[in-house]
């Protein structure tokens, strides 16, 4: 019934489709490099209508015949104004000139800035400007887009050493992280200290934490959509940076001018290389080291205005080695992601845009350890083959219809352990993979009902199937197999349908203020379970199976959005309530087991959760001084029958107060300053409340789950970036006069100070036990580990 109503609504909303309309369409590009510009707003003055480019820089709008003034305004570009007569379909490709004069910049600030945040139906959707991210203070000088996302309200960091982020009470697995449409399953390097995204290769980043439009699915909490640069279509460039712990290099350029381009970007840390000479061969830690590297590559080819092809890929690896000669112990832990996507854009006529994508995505983790003659290896991972097709249809100026379908074939390796002692190899059952289909189709319409009311109504239908070969074991408490149910290759083991309506609306109070509301119902079929107390690469991805039901949530949100001073200042407050079902955790005390007559999902337990909160956001969008203040008040609880005696307990990252202040200031053409301040209540952890002795051994009696809150976290970071002169003066040979020409080498130096006032923030708390319980001399002391004191860093960046 709901579906019928929905389609009736769409069809009834398209009366103007039968009138005579002409289509204005085209691409918006950077006039210097030929890069397409994403989410670039285009205004048609006389029609009082506007549209934004999609992620490929394409726009299309159908209007009555007439003469129109077209205005385009995009940060860091000169405004574009043109007049066109629309008496037939018009293809208008717009090239924006990079902003060069202060006067123009001033004009754009005061008169023409956009009010997308009050106009659109989007809630909890934010774009991050990569150029702004680059001048913000960065940990160890490494620009990190994920860390910047964590400055936004409603997005919480897990603390230092944790690049997993937590959106509105959801877990880190509930964020769909896309790099050129390929899902990235582990976005962290160095156990979370850095993200896998090399800012040099990124063009645009957008996060949706509110009502997720129907074209996104498969996760409950948020979408972080990251697009790589296409590469310069006109000139060859190299850019890079040399920092304290890593260096990076990006090369880009045309393969065929204005038709095809490439970009290649690499980064590697060299802590291991720097520390190697310091760890002598007789040191107990000889052989300990860590490094990571990543490589981004992208090629694209414009066959015509109607057809474009993109091939992009990412490959990154972390390698951690630990050696303790005293204990005869060695450990090797490599992990990493690989993604590849091949995309084809095609334009059917001027109003129907298609993007067909083939994606490969892989994440794997391995842990190898040897102690004397015993060795053990643990592996886990997830691999996807993914095909999708998305259409955007622009029937008229009031409607923007999207529809599409997606098929993912998943191969999970939840846990595989091999072990040997001397020449004896233990039979642990080998690798047991789990196969699954994830299929979805969606349709949505973002449309204007009246001048005041705009709606985004969508529906997503999903289907998940766990496939054979698979054997389901039922076991007793000791581990004896009670029953065994085998499934053939391709046989459906478990199947779930997901009915996912999405609804968002905007009510415009005035040109600068609106109220928005949204409801979304999402299904998630892949799950991350963490054995450890913190988020680590040892966390394991599981599919939904006959035991593991899909995670489901319903989110209700409402918000007030207001812009001031011609959109120079933006303010919003959003309230949300979220209800989560079928959340998963490891059973208390579970450890990775063997695969003999065993199902890895048997160690999981299931529960529910809820979260509610209020998010306040104030932003100065433009100008030499800009930035934002975000504050979130929230509460997040979990209820698991098998954990905490079934009593509700706060989520690990249930944080009542969370504040971020971010600012950048451009003093002059040489100096730009950045500052950030964060405050958040401490994470909730489970601490031993008591101890006791059995058989001479002291044991812990842990208190209620997550009942102890670590000290508050707060920190300020500062940065200063100095840009060398862009121009040099030469004597013009023809005129004999001085003239300014752009230098070939552009460079800048960024000095950043992490934790500027040297706050001792808690990373973890551990127990130091001394004495003997049986002798009455035992003392337990809690010790807080702080990872980073005040930490200055300097990075030299260059481009030529």
């Amino acid at each position, binding site marked *: 019934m709901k579906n019928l109503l929905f389609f009736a609504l769409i069809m009834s909303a398209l009366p103007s489709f039968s009138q005579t309309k002409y289509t204005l369409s085209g691409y918006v590009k950077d006039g210097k490099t030929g890069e397409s510009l994403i989410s670039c707003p285009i205004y048609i003055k006389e029609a009082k209508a506007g549209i934004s480019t999609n992620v490929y820089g394409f726009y299309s709008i159908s209007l009555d015949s007439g003469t129109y003034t077209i205005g385009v305004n995009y940060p860091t570009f000169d405004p574009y104004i043109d007049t066109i007569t629309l008496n037939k379909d018009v293809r208008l490709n717009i090239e924006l000139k990079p902003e060069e004069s202060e006067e123009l910049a001033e004009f754009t600030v005061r008169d023409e800035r956009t009010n997308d945040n009050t106009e659109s139906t989007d809630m909890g959707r934010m774009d991050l400007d990569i150029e702004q991210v680059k001048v913000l203070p960065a940990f160890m000088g490494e620009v990190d887009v994920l860390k910047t996302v964590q400055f936004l309200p409603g997005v919480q960091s897990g603390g230092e050493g944790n690049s997993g982020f937590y959106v509105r009470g959801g877990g880190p697995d509930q964020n769909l992280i896309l790099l050129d449409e390929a899902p990235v399953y582990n976005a962290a390097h160095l*156990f979370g200290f850095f993200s896998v995204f090399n800012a040099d290769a990124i063009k645009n980043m957008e996060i949706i934490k509110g009502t997720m439009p129907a074209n996104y699915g498969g996760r409950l909490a948020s979408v972080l959509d990251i697009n790589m640069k296409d590469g310069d279509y006109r000139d060859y460039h190299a850019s890079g940076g040399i920092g304290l712990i890593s260096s990076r290099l990006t090369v880009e350029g045309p393969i065929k001018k204005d038709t095809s381009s490439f970009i290649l970007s690499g980064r590697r840390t060299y802590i291991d290389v720097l520390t190697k000479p310091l760890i002598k061969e007789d040191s107990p830690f000889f052989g300990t080291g860590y490094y990571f590297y990543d490589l981004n590559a992208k090629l694209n080819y414009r066959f015509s205005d109607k057809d474009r092809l993109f091939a992009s890929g990412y490959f990154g690896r972390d390698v951690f080695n*630990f050696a*303790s000669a005293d204990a005869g*112990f060695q*450990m090797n*832990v490599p992990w990493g992601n690989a993604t590849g996507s091949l995309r084809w854009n095609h334009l059917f006529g001027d109003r129907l845009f298609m993007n067909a994508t083939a994606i490969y995505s892989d994440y794997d983790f391995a842990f190898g350890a040897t102690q004397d003659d*015993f060795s053990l290896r643990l592996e886990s991972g997830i691999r996807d083959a993914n095909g999708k097709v998305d259409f955007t249809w622009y029937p008229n100026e009031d409607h923007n219809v999207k529809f599409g379908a997606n098929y993912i074939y998943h191969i999970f390796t939840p846990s595989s352990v091999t072990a040997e002692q001397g020449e*004896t190899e233990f039979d642990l059952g080998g690798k047991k993979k789990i196969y699954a289909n994830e299929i979805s189709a969606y349709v949505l319409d973002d449309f204007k009902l009246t001048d005041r009311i705009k709606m985004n109504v969508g529906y997503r239908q999903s289907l998940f199937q766990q496939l054979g070969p698979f054997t389901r074991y039922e076991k007793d*408490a000791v581990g*004896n197999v009670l029953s065994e149910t085998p499934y053939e290759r391709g046989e459906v083991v478990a199947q779930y349908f997901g009915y996912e309506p999405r609804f968002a609306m905007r009510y415009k109070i005035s040109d600068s203020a609106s109220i928005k509301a949204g409801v979304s119902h999402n299904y998630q079929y892949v799950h991350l379970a963490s*054995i*450890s*107390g*913190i988020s*680590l690469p*040892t966390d394991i991805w599981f599919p939904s199976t006959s035991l593991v039901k899909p995670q489901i949530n319903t989110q209700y949100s409402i918000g007030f959005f207001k812009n001031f001073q011609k959109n120079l200042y933006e303010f919003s407050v959003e309230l949300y309530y979220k209800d989560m079902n079928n959340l998963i955790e*490891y059973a*208390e*005390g*579970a*450890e990775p087991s*063997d695969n003999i007559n065993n199902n890895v999902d048997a160690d999981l337990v299931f529960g529910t959760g809820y979260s509610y909160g209020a998010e306040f956001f104030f932003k100065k969008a433009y100008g030499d001084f800009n930035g934002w203040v975000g504050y979130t008040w929230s509460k997040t609880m979990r209820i698991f029958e098998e954990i905490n005696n079934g009593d509700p307990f706060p989520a690990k990252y249930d944080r009542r107060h969370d504040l971020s202040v971010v600012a950048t200031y451009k003093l002059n053409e040489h100096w730009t300053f950045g500052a950030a301040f964060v405050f958040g209540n401490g994470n909730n*952890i489970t*601490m*031993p*409340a*008591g*101890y*006791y*002795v*059995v*058989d*001479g*051994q002291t*044991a*812990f*009696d*842990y*208190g209620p789950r997550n009942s102890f809150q670590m000290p508050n976290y707060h920190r300020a970071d500062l940065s200063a970036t100095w840009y060398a002169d862009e121009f040099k003066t030469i004597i013009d040979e023809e005129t004999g006069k001085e003239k300014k020409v752009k230098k070939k080498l552009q460079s800048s130096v960024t000095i950043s100070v992490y934790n500027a006032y040297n706050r001792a923030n808690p*990373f*973890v*708390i*551990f127990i*130091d*036990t001394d*004495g003997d*319980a*049986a*002798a*009455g001399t035992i*003392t*337990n*002391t*809690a*010790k*807080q*580990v*702080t*990872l*980073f004191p005040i930490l200055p860093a300097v990075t030299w960046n260059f481009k030529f």
Partner: protein
Amino acid sequence: MRLNQIYIALLACVTVFSCTKEIDLELPEYEPKLVVDGTIEEGLPPIVLLTKSQAFFGETDINSFENSFVHDAVVIVSDGTTTDTLQEFCSSSLPPGTDTLVAQFLGVPVEALAFANICAYTTLNQAMFGQLNTHYSLRIESEGNTYTSMTKIPNRVPLDSVWFEGEASSLPHGFVYAILSDPDTLGNGYRWYDKRLNLADDGFPKDFNFGLPFGASFFDEFFNAETFEFGVARSDSDRDDENDREGFFRIGDTIVIKFCSVPYESAEYYQFAETQAINNGNPFSSPANNPTNIEGGALGVWTGYAVTYDTIVAQ
């Protein structure tokens, strides 16, 4: 070697490369729980130590240890045929010269008897002494609460062979090795104890009591019905001399291995407890309580032991 190795390595890295400071934690007031440390061994009477758990960051001294013993509880053990109410005995009222025997009997260091009044519930009723392949129920009534448990003394699973082997790089030190043939039924638990009988310089044996080395409690999850060889390090001892090496036996040692079959639930408890002790609240590990087999809200474990002894001389 399990996943906790990675957590230990992580903590080692973190503490080496970071700043650590002592902090005061404001934890909610702790309500002590009854702790049951109960054993019944083949041919021996049941012994049940009842204590109260202590607040984790509370003040401790010898009094708090002594005061942790729970007195005047009603402790009833039954094998289904014979039911007996155990009596409470305390070390302060032992006949002179029996302390070593009692310490061994209770499984506590002999020194502990000297400075603390240790109390245990047991019986002299020989009909209640442990027998192979027999189930034993335990019922405790204390301070208005009732706690129950069940264990079994399983059949003995003796080691096929036991021997000492010197480590080429560490001579005259080495480890004890054994071959075990696990029965074909899943769910067999084991515990391995060692003791050196040869005399120390003071004329007393190197070890008064049996000790548990690292990895001494295990069950047949990974080796059900298999025959395999394994090596074990020596348990800690505070009576080592300068010729001894921690974790190693030495050529010349006379070594007794006490190899016990225990129920799966008990082996799981002890293995878990060992892991928990190694992790020692390591924040990277999972914070979970040891899986008790006591019903009613108490901590601890009630275990039946079937025991075999092997004595070897390291050479």
